[in-house]
């Protein structure tokens, strides 16, 4: 059985700020990480593999991104993927969700034509669109189940416990299928051992270019994108309160009065 885990490298979310003048993300000094939801997806794949008594499961991690996205795939290899592919080419630059899904589809078709299952994170924490997995499944013509929290493979079928607004649903589908994951099998993120770290460096990690995918260039990158990001902006920052030093109560009261008067919050004079 072959499980494909499609992943994305993202900037560590809580540290990203938006440059108010240019409207672009300030990524300087921000570390790139494996998208946490993608890590959940990988953990699900590893759990299925660990539970498989026949030891016949292969986990293949795949991503589209710049050369440095290799580090996110390396992390997948440390955490249990058997091999990895990075679709990387300047022709892919500027891809929107549609062009990304198309590129991933061709990538998967080329390198894992006989896959059984694709597992993705429910969304990436940078763009938050959650559209690529759905478009990928649609392009591949396979069933898709979103927001999975538990998976169980039974012969050629997969049973998924998925989150809904009101609770959970259990849905079964035939494989091949695509599942997105909103919660990992454990609340504690795994850590690789030093042995896993070394072994990952010896597992195959191949770079696939646009030429190798044999897709019409017009369908790739910016050319193949139906949507474009016009503007990115941060929500307005809430004004912080002012703390008045109270070590001298007289002075503190004067400052407080001056502030209240300036804001026209009081209209009478205090003797």
């Amino acid at each position: 059985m072959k499980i494909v885990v499609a992943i994305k490298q993202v900037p560590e979310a809580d540290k990203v700020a938006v440059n108010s003048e240019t409207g672009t993300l300030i990524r300087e000094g921000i570390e790139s990480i494996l998208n946490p939801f993608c890590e959940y997806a990988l953990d699900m794949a590893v759990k299925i593999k660990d539970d498989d008594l026949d030891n016949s499961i292969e986990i293949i991690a795949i991503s589209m991104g710049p050369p440095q996205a290799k580090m996110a795939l390396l992390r997948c290899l440390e955490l249990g993927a058997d091999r990895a592919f990075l679709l990387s080419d300047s022709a892919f630059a500027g891809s929107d969700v549609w062009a990304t899904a198309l590129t991933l589809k061709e990538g998967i078709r080329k390198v894992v034509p006989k896959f059984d299952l694709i597992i993705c994170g429910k969304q990436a924490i940078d763009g938050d669109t959650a559209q690529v997995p759905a478009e990928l499944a649609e392009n591949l013509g396979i069933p898709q189940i979103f927001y999975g929290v538990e998976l169980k493979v039974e012969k050629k079928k997969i049973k998924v416990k998925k989150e809904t607004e009101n609770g959970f649903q259990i849905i079964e589908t035939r494989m091949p299928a695509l599942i997105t994951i909103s919660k990992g099998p454990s609340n504690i993120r795994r850590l690789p051992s030093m042995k896993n770290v070394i072994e990952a460096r010896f597992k195959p990690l191949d770079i696939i270019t646009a030429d190798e995918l044999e897709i019409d260039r017009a369908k790739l990158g910016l050319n193949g994108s139906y949507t474009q990001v016009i503007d990115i902006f941060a929500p307005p920052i809430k004004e912080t309160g002012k703390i008045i030093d109270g070590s001298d109560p007289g002075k503190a009261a004067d400052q407080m009065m001056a502030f209240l008067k300036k804001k026209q919050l009081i209209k009478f004079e205090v003797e």
Partner: protein
Amino acid sequence: MIIVSSNIISSIKVEFVPFNEIRKIHGSQIISSDYPAYLVDESKLEGNAEWLFFPKSEAEIISIIHFLREKRIPTYISAARTGIVGSCVPKSGSILSIEKMDKMLGLGFDETKGKYYCRLEPGIPLKVINDKMMKKEVEKVRELTPNAISRFLEEKKSYYYPMDPTEMSASISGTVATNASGAGTFKYGATRKWVKKIRIALSNGEILEIPRGKYYASNDGMFIVKQTDGTDLVCKIPSYEFNTDVKNAAGIYAKPNMDLIDLFIGSEGLFGVITEVEIWVIEKHPLISNVLFFNSEPDALNFVKLIRSNQIVSPEFIEYFCGGSLDLLRNVQNKNPAFLNMPQIPSKARSAIFFDLPYSEDNLVSYFEEIDGLANQCNTTLETSWSGYENREFLRFKHFRHALPETVNSIIAERKRQYPALHKLGTDISVPEENFSNMMQYYHSVLQEAALEYVIFGHIGDFHVHLNILPKNIEELELGQKFYEQFAKKAVEYDGSVSAEHGIGKIKIEFLKIMYNEKEIEQMRSTKIALDPLLMFNCGNIFEIQGDK
């Protein structure tokens, strides 16, 4: 090179501001009711004071000193109050809190050494220094050498100050006054090594500017301070040689022909107020954190020996967890896995070593293969380990290390409900490498025979582990105290230190007497009196002195 005349330094007169412009609180009642935090440090020793000053500049410090001198009021220098031996806790008189002096003043580049250095106000916290260095926030700082700032801003590399005494809210002057150290001391040494220059306000109300490498003690151990009124302060350093063979923060530093700057570093504020500090900063390189588990303590100790002498791998630090420590953390993990936020600790592990290594994809495999070889010699494999190199993982490893003392503290806090006088007994003992294994065996045999609960963890790379005894009642506390003294005596027999990093402060004075004889302590007193004849600064730190008992 020793220049005979270089033991003479002139103190400088500086401007001072009218005393009434300085922010201050007067009255012991108001201080204890409204400013109680200034009367304690992390040791929880409590003091009292009549005055509390918040100077904003060196000139204000000088004004305060003139006032205190005139009124004969002693003072206790206070900064971030993160110490754990009561050094900043006032016995009486006044508190001089330098916390408002928290700016980075300048940045320079030393062409000869090829290194950057920062000039800092004394109250700046270490965390702020590193944030400014990492984010290159140097817009408002003065350029100390031509083009230093533009050069710094153009650098693609990140820089930082490598001293990490765990508590990064500590102030720079507090860490200089205590010669602070931490896990990273294994690779980077203690604070002393990183101080380029200091300015000190003496009790005469004048300033000493002391760069490293300019003033050395004469062959007969003398320094002479030429005061602006034409008189001299003649200071003789103690004749003992400070033990630097082990990590050591006990007593006044003294060496033949020592650099004057070293007399002030680690002196716990006995000689004056630090008003400015210059420190070296270095390039930050990527790291990989690792925890390797072992089946026994001897295996872990053997690994430490092997990795310390290894020529290929060079850890940033080497930290230890004993079997009891791992049991304590397993309990935490069972009750509240999210608190520890780490994978399950391997069930058979009876000790662990935590170490960071420099990380690059070019050297990673060769380093780990080397470690694998060492691990095999110590009956373990790299399978029973954790490893991580992303920032978010570093935080997890760091938390794992700190979770242990936090857990000990919470257990003691729980037991205090029944026995309010109960407290943790935490040692700070270091011994030389050749005696370390014997010292560990001694700890185990004494404590196991007495059936006391304890954990051992910490800076094993420097042969400086923290033994924490967790008494369950007052009898066990008293027994533990007796053992603590016994361990300190054994450490001194083994040429170790009774206080490797915490300092002596006010709460470990009795331990100092195990390490130094009365004559040596008297020499420390003489040095203190020579530089602070009116006994104005931090009296009662390190040793008792007339009038402060």
